């Protein structure tokens, strides 16, 4: 190693920058975050992409770096972001970081105007020459809109204080190429949470990750398992966080990381505008998904919820739809019910079908005018603009408390109900006249913590098939 003060090894979280409600830097929040991750990490990286460096002034970056260094109190090295589009700005940031006591600098490929290979080389050369601390090159084409060219990396690797490259591209062909062409002259740190295991196995010496401030201990586990050649353990650990890693990388970035930390009680506030805390790059449905994943990892407490099974006689289950027992016992009305699956993906369906111009038709129309909060009815479709017939309403019986829960109904459950109905048309189970003249309503009961969409889809499809069999053959 060229510089003993800092080794590009192990797990380094790319810290978010906590903000107060009025978008000021939240010093207690930042200190709290550092304390939360410190026991599990080999270093810290403030003012990177996840740290919203692009929304911070140079003074604010200096302030963030100073707070982090102060809070760390020498226990691990601090690698400060020195990311800027111009060389002049990057040099100033790197010098400021060195003065503040940083152990190294992370320098991103110059962005916005797209300089030539020569310009990119000169940029890193000048930053490296301006300071004495180690420099980590930073390839992140997702936001820079260009790769740090491999041939430039090859040459930069000869500069004494350029010690590593952080590769966030997730493109392992690039990572392998850099490892091959620099041949030990440069350490490569993986910066893409979804491919940590293969990157480490392929020769990366460590990681700088956004998710390493959410579950640093899991990444430590992956790191040491790969070191000792225990690939089974490494795979199991990577797999346990794969979905969250994907969400952090592709469905919200630092915004999603902030949302996760806030849920865990590590208060880091919202991102700066124009980003929204939720409902922007991080859509509400995905935010709710993060919560369940954190519950699974034991990062937040998992409420115990039992699936309310409906056990009263079938004819009594439609009272909330305004369909009393007498009506349901009439000849023209068909009923069916079925349960499929178990655990969180168990599905119960109660089905009523009848002529459009009778009480079932009237109840159908009323459901669409009188949505009950949390039990809003929706029309069954195979996909948008492909409504199934007989026209069918899906009504959730368990109150929907968030958009992810709603998503389980209007996503997999709805698709399954639609598919089962069209299967029933194809097999002749549902007679042709019913196609035009009848409507159906399906009350669906699914667990609020249902998580596996494929299992839910299969169970709902099976249950709907059986309920239709019930309704149309009396079996």
């Amino acid at each position, binding site marked *: 190693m060229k510089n003993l003060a800092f080794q590009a090894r192990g797990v380094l979280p790319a810290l978010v920058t906590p903000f107060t409600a009025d978008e000021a830097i939240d010093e207690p929040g930042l200190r709290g975050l550092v304390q939360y991750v410190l026991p599990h990490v080999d270093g810290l990286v403030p003012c990177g992409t996840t740290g919203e460096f692009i929304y911070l002034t140079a003074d604010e970056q200096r302030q963030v770096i100073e707070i982090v260094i102060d809070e760390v109190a020498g226990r691990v090295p601090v690698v400060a972001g020195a990311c800027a589009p111009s060389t002049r700005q990057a040099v100033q940031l790197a010098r400021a970081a060195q003065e503040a006591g940083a152990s190294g600098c992370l320098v991103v490929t110059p962005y916005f105007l797209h300089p030539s290979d020569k310009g990119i080389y000169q940029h890193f050369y000048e930053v490296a020459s301006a300071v004495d601390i180690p420099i980590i090159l930073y390839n992140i084409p997702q936001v820079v809109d260009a790769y740090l060219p491999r041939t430039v990396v090859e040459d930069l690797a000869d500069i004494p204080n350029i010690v590593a490259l952080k590769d966030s591209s997730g493109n392992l062909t690039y990572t392998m190429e850099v490892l091959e062409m620099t041949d030990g002259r440069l350490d490569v740190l993986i910066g893409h949470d979804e491919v940590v295991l293969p990157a480490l196995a392929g020769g990366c010496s460590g990681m700088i990750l956004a998710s390493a401030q959410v579950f640093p201990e899991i990444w430590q586990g992956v790191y040491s398992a790969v070191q000792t050649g225990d690939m089974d353990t490494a795979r199991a650990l990577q797999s346990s966080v794969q979905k969250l890693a994907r969400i952090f990388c592709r469905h919200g970035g630092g915004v999603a990381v902030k949302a996760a930390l806030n849920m865990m009680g590590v208060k880091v506030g919202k991102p700066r505008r124009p980003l929204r805390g939720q409902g922007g790059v991080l859509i509400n449905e995905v935010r709710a998904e993060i919560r369940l994943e954190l519950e699974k990892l034991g990062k937040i407490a998992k409420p115990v919820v039992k699936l309310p099974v409906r056990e009263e006689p079938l004819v009594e289950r439609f009272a909330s739809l305004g369909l009393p027992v007498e009506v349901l016992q009439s000849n023209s009305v068909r009923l069916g019910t079925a349960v499929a699956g178990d655990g969180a993906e168990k599905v119960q369906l109660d089905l009523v079908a009848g002529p459009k111009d009778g009480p079932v038709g009237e109840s159908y129309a009323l459901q*669409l*005018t009188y*949505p009950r*909060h949390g039990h809003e009815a929706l029309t069954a479709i*195979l996909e*948008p603009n492909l409504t*199934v017939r007989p026209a069918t309403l899906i009504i959730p019986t368990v109150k929907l408390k968030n958009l992810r829960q709603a998503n389980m109904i209007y996503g997999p459950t709805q698709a399954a109900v639609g598919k089962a109905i069209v299967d029933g048309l194809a097999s002749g189970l549902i007679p042709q006249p019913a196609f035009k003249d009848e409507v159906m309503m399906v009350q669906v009961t699914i667990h609020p913590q249902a998580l596996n969409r494929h299992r839910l889809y299969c169970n709902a499809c099976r249950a709907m098939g059986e309920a239709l069999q019930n309704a149309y053959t009396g079996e």
Partner: protein
Amino acid sequence: MGKKPEWFKGIFPALVTPFSDGAAIDEAAYRSLIRHVLPDVNGIVPVGTTGEFVYLTEEEKHKAIDIALDEAAGHVPVVAGTGCASTRETVALTQYAKDAGAHAALVLAPYYLKPTYNEVYEHYEAVNKVGLPIILYNIPQCAGTHFKWWTAEGMAYLDNVVGIKDSSGDMPFLMALFEKIKGHVSIFCGHDEIVMAALAAGADGAILASANLIPDIWQEIYAAVRSGDLAKAQNLQARIQKLVRIVVRRGSVQAVKEGLCMMGLDVGNARLPVMPGGAFRREDREELRAQLEALGKIPPQGVQYELSSKTVHTQVPATPQTPRRISGFALKVGEGFAGPPFSELAHVDLLLGERGGPVGKAIEQALAVPHPGHEVRIVSERPRTLLVPTITVRSEKQAEHIYVCASGGVVKAIEASVADGFLPADALEDLVMIANVFVHPAAANRTRIEMNNYKAMRAAIRKAIEGRPTLEELLYERQAARHPFRYAP
């Protein structure tokens, strides 16, 4: 010395290849299609990209070229698509076109495996030896390789190359071609969205998918540019811009084919794996239909509504899917979905029925009971229409999105449906509707909320009345339908 042939200018449709139900080439439909475009075009192009050349056997390509030549019968020149992936096949097909009597061959750059520019040059050199005039064809969207101007320039000097068709839509590339080879060979635009600009900048003509649908309008644009009336050409291009954008970006072949079918020219579907409701989404079909109507391509026809109390006669822009007698007005269900963008997508669940039926009763009952968080409103009296928010309204912003923006779109859709006859004047007192509208809580762009709700509501009204999707459509998509919210993030 220039090689521009006198005949190679103006508007050439890239003909679709009609298929019958059994998926064989439908010769009768093919001939009808050619007769439909013939009065307005300067030539025709069978077996191009739009002609699904890549899904045709060699024998079928021969047949399509033969039919086109026979039906054109010397009235207009025929430019046969002869591009294949390999040089051997391309040479053979070009030879066939020459022997059959085609005026020229349209030869696209070899695709799939990506030959280098010297290999591409030698490919064209080999085709050049056949002796039929050839037109170079750049379509990077499908071929995967974009000509460089210097490659095109070099190939333009092969002695039988008489033109180049550029479908890239890359205007700077086209400008470079004008700079380098204008006057030497003919330069054709193949991207429907920029035709007027390309002609004004110096293109000799255009080979277009949308010229199957609207050859007359393209001819007017061509004539306007030729006569120097750029203002007229701009206005005409603007009138068809949405239609051609749908064709170019939303499924091309299938879009053109469904458009022709809606106009009454049954050319069948594209071959699998292209599917109806695929790249050409169902919401695009509604939009294409509306555009064709606005251009007078789908004229109104008589349809009769059998209400329980009376029969109402109306004139609507009917397609072959529209039933001529419609009954069952007790309760009709329609659905409309329009997007993107995601946050502002619109989803309307519509109920349409008679005042005295279940829909009418539900409306009166709904108005009699307060709905906290789901306040319902009558947004139209003729026909009486109740607007219901699908999800709970929690903020003033959401309320504005529902009761101002989405509602505005819904009302405009009702007005449009009264104007086009789907909601007939004689039935406005008898019919009632419930529009259950979804606006995502994260929505921000108010103009798009209104626009998408307009589209979704208009489609929902038509689908309810026409009974779409049909049983056939549902069964056809039983396996392939893909619900967008079924999958984990």
